[in-house]
Protein backbone atom coordinates (compact mmCIF):
# COMPACT_ATOMS: atom_id res chain seq x y z
CA UNK A 1 0.00 0.00 0.00
CA UNK A 2 2.68 2.56 0.85
CA UNK A 3 4.28 1.69 -2.42
CA UNK A 4 1.04 2.43 -4.09
CA UNK A 5 0.76 5.78 -2.42
CA UNK A 6 4.35 6.58 -3.17
CA UNK A 7 4.05 5.52 -6.74
CA UNK A 8 1.01 7.65 -7.11
CA UNK A 9 2.64 10.62 -5.52
CA UNK A 10 5.40 10.23 -8.03
CA UNK A 11 3.13 10.32 -11.00
CA UNK A 12 2.64 13.40 -13.08
CA UNK A 13 -0.91 12.89 -14.29
CA UNK A 14 -4.17 13.56 -12.57
CA UNK A 15 -6.06 10.50 -11.34
CA UNK A 16 -8.88 11.21 -13.73
CA UNK A 17 -6.49 11.22 -16.64
CA UNK A 18 -4.83 8.03 -15.47
CA UNK A 19 -8.19 6.38 -15.09
CA UNK A 20 -7.40 5.82 -11.42
CA UNK A 21 -10.79 5.71 -9.76
CA UNK A 22 -9.41 5.17 -6.29
CA UNK A 23 -7.26 8.25 -6.25
CA UNK A 24 -9.95 10.26 -7.95
CA UNK A 25 -12.29 9.34 -5.13
CA UNK A 26 -9.67 10.25 -2.53
CA UNK A 27 -9.15 13.59 -4.25
CA UNK A 28 -12.83 14.26 -4.37
CA UNK A 29 -13.12 13.58 -0.67
CA UNK A 30 -10.11 15.75 0.12
CA UNK A 31 -11.46 18.58 -1.97
CA UNK A 32 -14.90 18.27 -0.44
CA UNK A 33 -13.46 18.41 3.07
CA UNK A 34 -11.07 21.21 2.20
CA UNK A 35 -13.72 23.33 0.53
CA UNK A 36 -16.09 22.85 3.43
CA UNK A 37 -13.32 23.87 5.79
CA UNK A 38 -12.50 26.82 3.58
CA UNK A 39 -16.12 27.88 3.67
CA UNK A 40 -16.08 27.76 7.44
CA UNK A 41 -12.86 29.73 7.54
CA UNK A 42 -14.23 32.15 4.98
CA UNK A 43 -17.30 32.65 7.10
CA UNK A 44 -15.18 33.64 10.07
CA UNK A 45 -12.85 35.73 7.99
CA UNK A 46 -15.67 37.56 6.25
CA UNK A 47 -17.30 38.48 9.51
CA UNK A 48 -14.06 39.64 11.02
CA UNK A 49 -12.86 41.54 7.97
CA UNK A 50 -16.23 43.14 7.39
CA UNK A 51 -16.38 44.09 11.04
CA UNK A 52 -13.04 45.79 10.85
CA UNK A 53 -14.09 47.65 7.75
CA UNK A 54 -16.99 48.88 9.79
CA UNK A 55 -15.13 49.85 12.94
CA UNK A 56 -16.42 47.00 15.02
CA UNK A 57 -14.90 43.81 16.29
CA UNK A 58 -17.07 41.08 14.87
CA UNK A 59 -17.44 37.79 16.73
CA UNK A 60 -15.37 37.83 19.90
CA UNK A 61 -17.15 35.62 22.36
CA UNK A 62 -17.20 32.09 21.01
CA UNK A 63 -13.61 31.03 21.21
CA UNK A 64 -10.67 33.42 21.15
CA UNK A 65 -11.44 36.19 18.69
CA UNK A 66 -14.55 34.26 17.70
CA UNK A 67 -12.57 31.45 16.13
CA UNK A 68 -15.16 28.89 17.10
CA UNK A 69 -18.06 31.03 15.94
CA UNK A 70 -18.52 29.27 12.58
CA UNK A 71 -18.60 25.93 14.33
CA UNK A 72 -21.15 27.19 16.81
CA UNK A 73 -23.18 28.61 13.92
CA UNK A 74 -22.99 25.37 12.02
CA UNK A 75 -24.16 23.43 15.07
CA UNK A 76 -26.97 25.87 15.65
CA UNK A 77 -28.10 25.62 12.05
CA UNK A 78 -27.91 21.85 12.07
CA UNK A 79 -30.02 21.60 15.19
CA UNK A 80 -32.56 24.22 14.23
CA UNK A 81 -36.06 23.30 13.29
CA UNK A 82 -36.34 22.72 9.61
CA UNK A 83 -39.45 24.51 8.49
CA UNK A 84 -41.15 23.73 5.22
CA UNK A 85 -43.97 26.17 4.54
CA UNK A 86 -47.33 24.51 4.29
CA UNK A 87 -48.01 25.88 0.84
CA UNK A 88 -44.57 25.08 -0.49
CA UNK A 89 -43.91 22.47 -3.11
CA UNK A 90 -42.34 19.91 -0.81
CA UNK A 91 -40.20 17.99 -3.26
CA UNK A 92 -38.83 20.96 -5.13
CA UNK A 93 -38.31 22.82 -1.87
CA UNK A 94 -36.29 19.89 -0.64
CA UNK A 95 -34.20 19.42 -3.74
CA UNK A 96 -33.40 23.07 -4.49
CA UNK A 97 -30.49 23.55 -2.08
CA UNK A 98 -29.10 20.19 -3.15
CA UNK A 99 -29.00 21.31 -6.77
CA UNK A 100 -27.13 24.46 -5.83
CA UNK A 101 -24.68 22.57 -3.68
CA UNK A 102 -24.06 19.88 -6.26
CA UNK A 103 -23.38 22.42 -8.96
CA UNK A 104 -21.02 24.41 -6.76
CA UNK A 105 -19.01 21.36 -5.73
CA UNK A 106 -18.93 19.64 -9.10
CA UNK A 107 -16.94 22.51 -10.55
CA UNK A 108 -14.02 21.48 -8.35
CA UNK A 109 -13.45 18.32 -10.34
CA UNK A 110 -11.74 20.32 -13.05
CA UNK A 111 -9.95 22.91 -10.96
CA UNK A 112 -6.22 22.27 -11.01
CA UNK A 113 -4.50 22.94 -7.72
CA UNK A 114 -1.30 21.77 -9.36
CA UNK A 115 -0.17 20.05 -12.55
CA UNK A 116 -1.33 16.72 -11.20
CA UNK A 117 -3.23 17.95 -8.16
CA UNK A 118 -6.66 17.82 -9.73
CA UNK A 119 -9.36 15.22 -9.87
CA UNK A 120 -9.41 15.22 -13.60
CA UNK A 121 -7.89 16.97 -16.53
CA UNK A 122 -10.80 17.16 -18.88
CA UNK A 123 -10.06 18.36 -22.36
CA UNK A 124 -13.17 20.52 -22.13
CA UNK A 125 -12.42 21.71 -18.59
CA UNK A 126 -13.43 25.32 -19.19
CA UNK A 127 -16.69 24.37 -20.87
CA UNK A 128 -17.44 21.91 -18.11
CA UNK A 129 -16.90 24.64 -15.57
CA UNK A 130 -19.17 27.08 -17.41
CA UNK A 131 -21.85 24.46 -17.87
CA UNK A 132 -21.90 23.23 -14.31
CA UNK A 133 -21.77 26.66 -12.77
CA UNK A 134 -24.69 27.65 -14.96
CA UNK A 135 -26.67 24.82 -13.40
CA UNK A 136 -26.21 26.44 -10.00
CA UNK A 137 -28.84 29.02 -10.82
CA UNK A 138 -31.42 26.30 -11.16
CA UNK A 139 -31.19 25.70 -7.43
CA UNK A 140 -31.90 29.36 -6.74
CA UNK A 141 -34.70 29.60 -9.26
CA UNK A 142 -36.59 26.54 -8.11
CA UNK A 143 -36.00 27.45 -4.47
CA UNK A 144 -37.65 30.79 -5.07
CA UNK A 145 -40.51 29.20 -6.90
CA UNK A 146 -41.04 26.31 -4.51
CA UNK A 147 -41.31 28.60 -1.49
CA UNK A 148 -44.60 29.82 -2.89
CA UNK A 149 -44.09 33.28 -1.53
CA UNK A 150 -43.67 36.63 -3.17
CA UNK A 151 -40.24 37.74 -2.07
CA UNK A 152 -38.52 34.45 -2.94
CA UNK A 153 -40.27 34.48 -6.29
CA UNK A 154 -39.01 37.95 -7.12
CA UNK A 155 -35.57 36.91 -5.93
CA UNK A 156 -35.69 33.89 -8.21
CA UNK A 157 -36.86 35.96 -11.17
CA UNK A 158 -34.08 38.44 -10.65
CA UNK A 159 -31.57 35.72 -10.19
CA UNK A 160 -32.47 33.82 -13.32
CA UNK A 161 -32.34 36.91 -15.50
CA UNK A 162 -29.12 38.05 -13.92
CA UNK A 163 -27.34 34.72 -14.25
CA UNK A 164 -28.30 34.22 -17.85
CA UNK A 165 -27.11 37.68 -18.81
CA UNK A 166 -23.83 37.60 -16.97
CA UNK A 167 -23.02 34.13 -18.18
CA UNK A 168 -22.71 35.51 -21.68
CA UNK A 169 -20.13 38.10 -20.71
CA UNK A 170 -18.38 35.57 -18.53
CA UNK A 171 -18.20 33.02 -21.35
CA UNK A 172 -16.82 35.57 -23.78
CA UNK A 173 -14.18 36.68 -21.30
CA UNK A 174 -13.20 33.05 -20.85
CA UNK A 175 -13.00 32.59 -24.60
CA UNK A 176 -10.50 35.42 -24.89
CA UNK A 177 -8.32 33.65 -22.33
CA UNK A 178 -8.68 30.39 -24.22
CA UNK A 179 -7.71 32.20 -27.37
CA UNK A 180 -4.49 33.29 -25.75
CA UNK A 181 -3.49 29.69 -25.09
CA UNK A 182 -3.07 29.09 -28.80
CA UNK A 183 -0.54 31.85 -29.26
CA UNK A 184 2.71 29.92 -29.33
CA UNK A 185 1.61 26.40 -30.05
CA UNK A 186 -0.98 27.15 -32.68
CA UNK A 187 -3.58 24.92 -31.08
CA UNK A 188 -5.44 26.22 -28.09
CA UNK A 189 -6.75 24.13 -25.30
CA UNK A 190 -9.86 24.08 -23.16
CA UNK A 191 -8.18 22.04 -20.47
CA UNK A 192 -7.67 23.95 -17.24
CA UNK A 193 -4.27 22.37 -16.69
CA UNK A 194 -3.39 23.07 -20.30
CA UNK A 195 -4.24 26.73 -19.85
CA UNK A 196 -1.92 27.11 -16.89
CA UNK A 197 0.81 25.19 -18.65
CA UNK A 198 0.37 27.42 -21.64
CA UNK A 199 0.89 30.45 -19.39
CA UNK A 200 4.08 28.83 -18.16
CA UNK A 201 5.27 28.16 -21.68
CA UNK A 202 4.50 31.66 -22.85
CA UNK A 203 6.17 33.03 -19.77
CA UNK A 204 3.36 35.42 -18.93
CA UNK A 205 0.19 35.39 -16.91
CA UNK A 206 -2.71 36.00 -19.23
CA UNK A 207 -3.75 39.03 -17.20
CA UNK A 208 -0.69 40.80 -18.64
CA UNK A 209 -0.94 39.26 -22.09
CA UNK A 210 -1.46 41.81 -24.87
CA UNK A 211 -1.67 44.48 -22.24
CA UNK A 212 -4.29 45.80 -21.62
CA UNK A 213 -6.50 43.27 -23.41
CA UNK A 214 -5.86 40.51 -20.91
CA UNK A 215 -6.42 42.88 -18.05
CA UNK A 216 -9.76 44.10 -19.43
CA UNK A 217 -10.94 40.57 -20.04
CA UNK A 218 -9.88 39.66 -16.52
CA UNK A 219 -11.70 42.61 -14.97
CA UNK A 220 -14.81 41.76 -16.95
CA UNK A 221 -14.60 38.19 -15.78
CA UNK A 222 -14.25 39.32 -12.17
CA UNK A 223 -17.30 41.56 -12.44
CA UNK A 224 -19.28 38.79 -14.08
CA UNK A 225 -18.20 36.29 -11.48
CA UNK A 226 -19.28 38.54 -8.63
CA UNK A 227 -22.63 38.80 -10.35
CA UNK A 228 -22.76 35.06 -10.95
CA UNK A 229 -22.26 34.31 -7.30
CA UNK A 230 -24.88 36.83 -6.21
CA UNK A 231 -22.52 38.84 -4.10
CA UNK A 232 -22.65 42.54 -3.34
CA UNK A 233 -22.99 44.83 -5.21
CA UNK A 234 -24.93 42.41 -7.40
CA UNK A 235 -26.77 40.57 -4.62
CA UNK A 236 -30.13 41.26 -6.19
CA UNK A 237 -31.46 37.81 -5.54
CA UNK A 238 -31.14 38.12 -1.80
CA UNK A 239 -31.15 41.88 -1.34
CA UNK A 240 -32.02 41.89 2.30
CA UNK A 241 -33.34 45.42 2.43
CA UNK A 242 -35.68 44.85 -0.49
CA UNK A 243 -36.66 41.21 -0.53
CA UNK A 244 -35.96 40.37 3.12
CA UNK A 245 -33.71 37.48 2.09
CA UNK A 246 -34.69 36.85 -1.50
CA UNK A 247 -34.87 33.29 -2.68
CA UNK A 248 -34.05 31.76 0.69
CA UNK A 249 -36.52 33.77 2.73
CA UNK A 250 -38.53 30.69 3.60
CA UNK A 251 -35.58 28.44 4.28
CA UNK A 252 -34.26 27.71 7.71
CA UNK A 253 -31.86 25.49 9.55
CA UNK A 254 -29.81 22.97 7.69
CA UNK A 255 -31.38 23.66 4.35
CA UNK A 256 -30.56 27.31 4.62
CA UNK A 257 -27.00 26.48 5.57
CA UNK A 258 -26.74 24.35 2.44
CA UNK A 259 -27.50 27.49 0.45
CA UNK A 260 -24.80 29.36 2.29
CA UNK A 261 -22.38 26.51 1.74
CA UNK A 262 -23.22 26.49 -1.94
CA UNK A 263 -22.81 30.24 -2.21
CA UNK A 264 -19.40 30.29 -0.60
CA UNK A 265 -18.27 27.17 -2.44
CA UNK A 266 -19.32 28.82 -5.69
CA UNK A 267 -17.38 31.94 -4.73
CA UNK A 268 -14.25 29.90 -4.17
CA UNK A 269 -14.87 27.96 -7.37
CA UNK A 270 -15.21 31.01 -9.60
CA UNK A 271 -12.21 32.61 -7.95
CA UNK A 272 -10.24 29.46 -8.70
CA UNK A 273 -11.28 29.72 -12.30
CA UNK A 274 -10.19 33.34 -12.48
CA UNK A 275 -6.87 32.39 -10.94
CA UNK A 276 -6.44 29.52 -13.36
CA UNK A 277 -7.30 31.48 -16.44
CA UNK A 278 -5.53 34.74 -15.78
CA UNK A 279 -3.26 34.57 -12.78
CA UNK A 280 -1.22 31.56 -13.66
CA UNK A 281 -2.99 29.04 -11.48
CA UNK A 282 -0.50 27.18 -9.33
CA UNK A 283 2.52 29.00 -10.76
CA UNK A 284 4.61 30.94 -8.30
CA UNK A 285 5.66 34.45 -9.27
CA UNK A 286 8.30 34.54 -12.01
CA UNK A 287 8.66 30.79 -12.57
CA UNK A 288 10.72 31.36 -15.71
CA UNK A 289 12.75 34.37 -14.70
CA UNK A 290 13.82 33.14 -11.30
CA UNK A 291 14.18 29.47 -12.09
CA UNK A 292 17.44 28.61 -10.36
CA UNK A 293 17.18 25.87 -7.71
CA UNK A 294 18.05 28.48 -5.11
CA UNK A 295 14.94 30.43 -6.09
CA UNK A 296 12.92 27.26 -5.97
CA UNK A 297 14.10 26.78 -2.45
CA UNK A 298 13.37 30.36 -1.42
CA UNK A 299 9.86 30.22 -2.82
CA UNK A 300 9.26 26.85 -1.24
CA UNK A 301 9.84 28.47 2.14
CA UNK A 302 6.81 30.69 1.65
CA UNK A 303 4.14 28.24 2.85
CA UNK A 304 6.02 27.57 6.06
CA UNK A 305 6.70 31.24 6.60
CA UNK A 306 3.06 32.14 6.02
CA UNK A 307 1.91 29.72 8.65
CA UNK A 308 4.69 30.97 10.85
CA UNK A 309 3.41 34.51 10.46
CA UNK A 310 -0.12 33.38 11.28
CA UNK A 311 1.21 31.62 14.36
CA UNK A 312 3.03 34.81 15.34
CA UNK A 313 -0.18 36.79 14.97
CA UNK A 314 -1.92 34.28 17.21
CA UNK A 315 0.91 34.51 19.75
CA UNK A 316 0.60 38.30 19.75
CA UNK A 317 -3.10 37.78 20.35
CA UNK A 318 -2.29 35.62 23.34
CA UNK A 319 0.07 38.25 24.72
CA UNK A 320 -2.43 41.06 24.25
CA UNK A 321 -5.28 39.26 25.88
CA UNK A 322 -6.01 40.71 29.32
CA UNK A 323 -4.72 38.73 32.26
CA UNK A 324 -7.97 37.90 33.94
CA UNK A 325 -9.61 34.65 34.98
CA UNK A 326 -12.39 35.43 32.57
CA UNK A 327 -10.02 35.17 29.62
CA UNK A 328 -8.15 32.10 30.90
CA UNK A 329 -9.86 29.58 28.67
CA UNK A 330 -9.62 31.87 25.71
CA UNK A 331 -5.91 32.44 26.27
CA UNK A 332 -5.26 28.75 26.45
CA UNK A 333 -7.39 28.11 23.40
CA UNK A 334 -5.60 30.74 21.38
CA UNK A 335 -2.24 29.46 22.56
CA UNK A 336 -3.16 25.97 21.42
CA UNK A 337 -4.25 27.39 18.11
CA UNK A 338 -0.96 29.24 17.80
CA UNK A 339 0.92 26.06 18.60
CA UNK A 340 -1.05 24.22 15.95
CA UNK A 341 -0.19 26.83 13.37
CA UNK A 342 3.39 26.75 14.51
CA UNK A 343 3.57 23.00 14.05
CA UNK A 344 2.15 23.27 10.59
CA UNK A 345 4.72 25.95 9.80
CA UNK A 346 7.50 23.78 11.16
CA UNK A 347 6.32 20.79 9.17
CA UNK A 348 6.17 22.79 5.99
CA UNK A 349 9.64 24.23 6.55
CA UNK A 350 11.01 20.77 7.19
CA UNK A 351 9.48 19.55 3.98
CA UNK A 352 10.97 22.51 2.14
CA UNK A 353 14.40 21.74 3.56
CA UNK A 354 14.08 18.02 2.87
CA UNK A 355 13.01 18.60 -0.67
CA UNK A 356 15.97 20.83 -1.32
CA UNK A 357 18.53 18.12 -1.96
CA UNK A 358 17.30 16.50 -5.12
CA UNK A 359 14.52 16.83 -7.62
CA UNK A 360 13.58 13.20 -7.89
CA UNK A 361 12.78 12.25 -4.31
CA UNK A 362 9.32 11.90 -3.00
CA UNK A 363 10.05 14.71 -0.57
CA UNK A 364 10.83 17.01 -3.47
CA UNK A 365 7.58 16.09 -5.20
CA UNK A 366 5.74 16.59 -1.97
CA UNK A 367 7.37 19.97 -1.57
CA UNK A 368 6.39 20.91 -5.10
CA UNK A 369 2.84 19.79 -4.47
CA UNK A 370 2.63 21.96 -1.38
CA UNK A 371 4.06 24.85 -3.32
CA UNK A 372 1.52 24.49 -6.07
CA UNK A 373 -1.40 24.30 -3.72
CA UNK A 374 -0.04 27.14 -1.61
CA UNK A 375 0.31 29.61 -4.46
CA UNK A 376 -3.07 28.64 -5.83
CA UNK A 377 -4.80 29.02 -2.50
CA UNK A 378 -3.03 32.31 -1.83
CA UNK A 379 -4.32 33.77 -5.07
CA UNK A 380 -7.80 32.50 -4.39
CA UNK A 381 -7.65 33.97 -0.89
CA UNK A 382 -6.93 37.37 -2.40
CA UNK A 383 -10.08 37.02 -4.43
CA UNK A 384 -12.01 36.14 -1.31
CA UNK A 385 -10.75 39.34 0.24
CA UNK A 386 -11.86 41.19 -2.87
CA UNK A 387 -15.36 39.82 -2.42
CA UNK A 388 -15.48 41.10 1.15
CA UNK A 389 -14.00 44.41 0.16
CA UNK A 390 -16.65 44.94 -2.49
CA UNK A 391 -19.35 44.05 -0.06
CA UNK A 392 -18.15 46.62 2.43
CA UNK A 393 -17.74 49.37 -0.12
CA UNK A 394 -20.52 49.39 -2.63
CA UNK A 395 -24.21 50.02 -2.45
CA UNK A 396 -26.39 47.56 -4.28
CA UNK A 397 -27.22 47.96 -7.93
CA UNK A 398 -30.82 48.21 -8.96
CA UNK A 399 -32.08 45.42 -11.11
CA UNK A 400 -32.43 47.32 -14.37
CA UNK A 401 -29.04 48.92 -13.86
CA UNK A 402 -27.59 45.50 -13.29
CA UNK A 403 -28.99 44.26 -16.56
CA UNK A 404 -27.81 47.39 -18.31
CA UNK A 405 -24.30 46.91 -17.01
CA UNK A 406 -24.38 43.31 -18.09
CA UNK A 407 -25.73 43.75 -21.58
CA UNK A 408 -24.73 47.23 -22.60
CA UNK A 409 -21.36 47.61 -20.93
CA UNK A 410 -19.81 44.29 -20.08
CA UNK A 411 -20.89 42.35 -23.13
CA UNK A 412 -19.74 44.84 -25.81
CA UNK A 413 -16.44 45.42 -24.04
CA UNK A 414 -15.80 41.71 -23.78
CA UNK A 415 -16.70 41.22 -27.41
CA UNK A 416 -14.36 43.97 -28.52
CA UNK A 417 -11.61 42.57 -26.35
CA UNK A 418 -12.19 39.14 -27.84
CA UNK A 419 -11.97 40.44 -31.38
CA UNK A 420 -8.91 42.54 -30.61
CA UNK A 421 -7.26 39.57 -28.94
CA UNK A 422 -7.83 37.50 -32.04
CA UNK A 423 -6.50 40.24 -34.32
CA UNK A 424 -3.44 40.93 -32.18
CA UNK A 425 -2.82 37.21 -31.88
CA UNK A 426 -2.84 36.78 -35.64
CA UNK A 427 -0.55 39.75 -36.11
CA UNK A 428 1.90 38.59 -33.46
CA UNK A 429 2.11 35.05 -34.69
Amino acid at each position, binding site marked *: *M*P*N*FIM*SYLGSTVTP*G*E*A*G*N*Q*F*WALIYVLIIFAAVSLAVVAMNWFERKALAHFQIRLGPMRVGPHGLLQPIADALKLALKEDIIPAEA*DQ*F*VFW*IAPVIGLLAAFTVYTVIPFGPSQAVSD*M*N*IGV*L*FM*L*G*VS*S*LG*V*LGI*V*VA*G*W*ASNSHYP*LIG*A*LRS*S*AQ*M*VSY*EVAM*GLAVVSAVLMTSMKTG*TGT*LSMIGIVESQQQQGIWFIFKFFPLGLIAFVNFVIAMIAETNRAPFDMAEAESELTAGYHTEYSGLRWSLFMLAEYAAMIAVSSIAVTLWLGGWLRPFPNLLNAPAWDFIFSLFPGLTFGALAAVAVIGVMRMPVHPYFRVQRIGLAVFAALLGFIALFLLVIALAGRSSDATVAARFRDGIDYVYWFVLKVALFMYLFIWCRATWPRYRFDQLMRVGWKVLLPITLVVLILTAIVGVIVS
Partner: protein
Amino acid sequence: MNPSLNMALISAFTTTTDPGMAPVATPFFFYLLSGLAVAGGFLVITRRNPVHCALALIVTLIAMAHLYLMLYAPFVAAVQIIVYAGGIMVLFLFVIMLVSIERASKDRRFNRIWPVGLAAACALMALFVSAFVKGRALFPDRMIAIPEGSNTQQVASMLYGEAGRMGQYTFAFEIASLLLLVAILGAVIMTKKKI
Protein backbone atom coordinates in the same frame (compact mmCIF):
# COMPACT_ATOMS: atom_id res chain seq x y z
CA MET B 1 2.55 -5.03 2.35
CA ASN B 2 2.33 -8.01 0.06
CA PRO B 3 3.44 -6.86 -3.38
CA SER B 4 0.87 -9.01 -5.14
CA LEU B 5 -1.94 -7.49 -3.13
CA ASN B 6 -0.45 -4.14 -3.91
CA MET B 7 -0.61 -4.87 -7.60
CA ALA B 8 -4.13 -6.16 -7.27
CA LEU B 9 -5.14 -2.92 -5.58
CA ILE B 10 -3.55 -0.90 -8.28
CA SER B 11 -5.23 -2.86 -11.01
CA ALA B 12 -8.54 -2.77 -9.23
CA PHE B 13 -8.65 0.97 -9.18
CA THR B 14 -6.73 1.72 -12.29
CA THR B 15 -7.41 1.19 -15.92
CA THR B 16 -3.98 2.12 -17.04
CA THR B 17 -4.27 0.32 -20.33
CA ASP B 18 -6.66 2.86 -21.72
CA PRO B 19 -5.49 6.42 -21.15
CA GLY B 20 -7.76 9.31 -21.87
CA MET B 21 -11.38 9.53 -20.95
CA ALA B 22 -12.29 5.91 -21.41
CA PRO B 23 -15.71 5.09 -20.04
CA VAL B 24 -16.10 2.27 -17.55
CA ALA B 25 -19.03 -0.13 -17.38
CA THR B 26 -20.39 1.22 -20.64
CA PRO B 27 -23.56 -0.86 -20.97
CA PHE B 28 -24.58 -0.18 -17.39
CA PHE B 29 -24.21 3.59 -17.77
CA PHE B 30 -25.79 3.53 -21.18
CA TYR B 31 -28.94 1.87 -19.87
CA LEU B 32 -28.96 4.00 -16.75
CA LEU B 33 -28.70 7.24 -18.70
CA SER B 34 -31.14 6.16 -21.38
CA GLY B 35 -33.57 5.10 -18.70
CA LEU B 36 -33.19 8.45 -16.99
CA ALA B 37 -33.73 10.29 -20.24
CA VAL B 38 -36.84 8.30 -21.08
CA ALA B 39 -38.23 8.57 -17.58
CA GLY B 40 -37.58 12.30 -17.61
CA GLY B 41 -39.32 12.63 -20.95
CA PHE B 42 -42.27 10.66 -19.66
CA LEU B 43 -42.52 12.90 -16.61
CA VAL B 44 -42.37 15.98 -18.79
CA ILE B 45 -45.59 15.09 -20.54
CA THR B 46 -47.43 13.65 -17.56
CA ARG B 47 -46.70 16.04 -14.71
CA ARG B 48 -49.36 18.64 -14.12
CA ASN B 49 -47.11 21.20 -12.53
CA PRO B 50 -45.09 22.99 -15.22
CA VAL B 51 -42.11 23.51 -12.93
CA HIS B 52 -41.94 19.79 -12.29
CA CYS B 53 -42.08 19.28 -16.03
CA ALA B 54 -39.19 21.68 -16.49
CA LEU B 55 -37.13 19.92 -13.86
CA ALA B 56 -37.83 16.57 -15.52
CA LEU B 57 -36.78 18.04 -18.83
CA ILE B 58 -33.53 19.20 -17.26
CA VAL B 59 -32.91 15.66 -16.05
CA THR B 60 -33.48 14.42 -19.59
CA LEU B 61 -31.11 16.98 -21.02
CA ILE B 62 -28.38 16.18 -18.54
CA ALA B 63 -28.76 12.45 -19.17
CA MET B 64 -28.44 13.09 -22.86
CA ALA B 65 -25.37 15.20 -22.27
CA HIS B 66 -23.82 12.24 -20.53
CA LEU B 67 -24.75 10.02 -23.44
CA TYR B 68 -22.88 12.38 -25.71
CA LEU B 69 -19.96 12.13 -23.35
CA MET B 70 -20.02 8.38 -23.72
CA LEU B 71 -19.92 8.85 -27.47
CA TYR B 72 -16.61 10.73 -27.14
CA ALA B 73 -18.28 14.00 -27.88
CA PRO B 74 -17.47 16.04 -24.78
CA PHE B 75 -17.79 19.34 -26.60
CA VAL B 76 -21.33 18.57 -27.65
CA ALA B 77 -22.10 17.40 -24.13
CA ALA B 78 -20.78 20.62 -22.61
CA VAL B 79 -22.68 22.74 -25.10
CA GLN B 80 -25.79 20.75 -24.38
CA ILE B 81 -25.53 21.57 -20.69
CA ILE B 82 -24.51 25.20 -21.10
CA VAL B 83 -27.07 26.09 -23.72
CA TYR B 84 -30.01 23.87 -22.89
CA ALA B 85 -29.85 23.00 -19.21
CA GLY B 86 -28.16 26.18 -18.05
CA GLY B 87 -29.57 28.76 -20.42
CA ILE B 88 -32.78 27.81 -22.10
CA MET B 89 -34.27 25.92 -19.20
CA VAL B 90 -33.60 28.82 -16.86
CA LEU B 91 -35.49 31.05 -19.26
CA PHE B 92 -38.24 28.43 -19.43
CA LEU B 93 -38.50 28.51 -15.67
CA PHE B 94 -38.46 32.28 -15.78
CA VAL B 95 -41.52 32.28 -18.02
CA ILE B 96 -43.25 29.47 -16.15
CA MET B 97 -42.93 31.34 -12.88
CA LEU B 98 -44.69 34.32 -14.36
CA VAL B 99 -47.59 32.19 -15.48
CA SER B 100 -50.31 31.39 -13.03
CA ILE B 101 -49.55 27.89 -11.81
CA GLU B 102 -52.97 27.31 -10.29
CA ARG B 103 -54.75 27.78 -13.55
CA ALA B 104 -52.25 25.79 -15.54
CA SER B 105 -52.45 22.83 -13.22
CA LYS B 106 -56.23 22.84 -13.39
CA ASP B 107 -56.22 22.64 -17.14
CA ARG B 108 -56.64 19.23 -18.67
CA ARG B 109 -53.27 17.83 -19.45
CA PHE B 110 -54.25 15.96 -22.60
CA ASN B 111 -56.70 17.64 -24.86
CA ARG B 112 -58.97 15.98 -27.33
CA ILE B 113 -56.49 15.40 -30.07
CA TRP B 114 -54.33 13.15 -27.95
CA PRO B 115 -55.08 10.09 -30.15
CA VAL B 116 -53.57 11.96 -33.08
CA GLY B 117 -50.49 12.72 -31.05
CA LEU B 118 -50.24 9.14 -29.97
CA ALA B 119 -50.53 8.02 -33.58
CA ALA B 120 -47.81 10.44 -34.62
CA ALA B 121 -45.55 9.21 -31.86
CA CYS B 122 -46.19 5.61 -32.86
CA ALA B 123 -45.42 6.42 -36.48
CA LEU B 124 -42.18 8.06 -35.49
CA MET B 125 -41.30 5.09 -33.33
CA ALA B 126 -42.04 2.75 -36.24
CA LEU B 127 -39.83 4.81 -38.47
CA PHE B 128 -36.96 4.60 -36.04
CA VAL B 129 -37.37 0.86 -35.55
CA SER B 130 -37.60 0.18 -39.27
CA ALA B 131 -34.58 2.33 -39.93
CA PHE B 132 -32.70 0.42 -37.28
CA VAL B 133 -33.81 -2.98 -38.60
CA LYS B 134 -33.49 -2.31 -42.29
CA GLY B 135 -30.38 -0.22 -42.20
CA ARG B 136 -28.57 -2.42 -39.76
CA ALA B 137 -25.48 -2.23 -41.85
CA LEU B 138 -25.25 1.48 -41.11
CA PHE B 139 -24.85 0.90 -37.39
CA PRO B 140 -21.58 -0.68 -36.38
CA ASP B 141 -21.67 -3.23 -33.60
CA ARG B 142 -19.02 -1.43 -31.67
CA MET B 143 -17.08 1.73 -31.93
CA ILE B 144 -14.50 1.35 -34.63
CA ALA B 145 -11.88 3.63 -33.21
CA ILE B 146 -11.56 6.29 -30.67
CA PRO B 147 -11.36 9.45 -32.73
CA GLU B 148 -8.01 11.11 -32.72
CA GLY B 149 -7.65 14.63 -31.56
CA SER B 150 -10.20 16.25 -29.38
CA ASN B 151 -13.82 16.46 -30.26
CA THR B 152 -13.68 20.21 -29.93
CA GLN B 153 -11.21 20.48 -32.75
CA GLN B 154 -13.25 18.16 -34.91
CA VAL B 155 -16.30 20.28 -34.44
CA ALA B 156 -14.27 23.36 -35.19
CA SER B 157 -12.80 21.99 -38.39
CA MET B 158 -16.22 20.87 -39.56
CA LEU B 159 -17.73 24.26 -38.91
CA TYR B 160 -14.88 26.54 -39.83
CA GLY B 161 -12.53 24.36 -41.84
CA GLU B 162 -8.87 23.54 -41.67
CA ALA B 163 -6.23 26.10 -42.41
CA GLY B 164 -6.59 27.23 -45.98
CA ARG B 165 -9.99 25.82 -46.88
CA MET B 166 -13.56 26.21 -45.82
CA GLY B 167 -15.20 23.66 -43.63
CA GLN B 168 -17.90 21.33 -44.69
CA TYR B 169 -20.63 23.28 -42.95
CA THR B 170 -19.26 26.79 -42.79
CA PHE B 171 -21.85 28.26 -45.09
CA ALA B 172 -24.78 26.46 -43.47
CA PHE B 173 -23.54 27.42 -40.05
CA GLU B 174 -23.23 31.08 -40.94
CA ILE B 175 -26.65 31.08 -42.54
CA ALA B 176 -28.14 29.52 -39.46
CA SER B 177 -26.50 32.05 -37.17
CA LEU B 178 -27.72 34.87 -39.40
CA LEU B 179 -31.22 33.46 -39.19
CA LEU B 180 -31.01 33.36 -35.42
CA LEU B 181 -29.77 36.93 -35.35
CA VAL B 182 -32.72 38.04 -37.43
CA ALA B 183 -35.03 36.13 -35.12
CA ILE B 184 -33.53 37.83 -32.08
CA LEU B 185 -33.85 41.28 -33.63
CA GLY B 186 -37.39 40.52 -34.66
CA ALA B 187 -38.30 39.40 -31.18
CA VAL B 188 -36.79 42.51 -29.66
CA ILE B 189 -38.59 44.80 -32.07
CA MET B 190 -41.89 43.02 -31.62
CA THR B 191 -41.85 43.12 -27.84
CA LYS B 192 -40.23 46.44 -27.24
CA LYS B 193 -41.62 49.60 -28.68
CA LYS B 194 -38.71 51.75 -27.66
CA ILE B 195 -35.21 50.36 -27.56
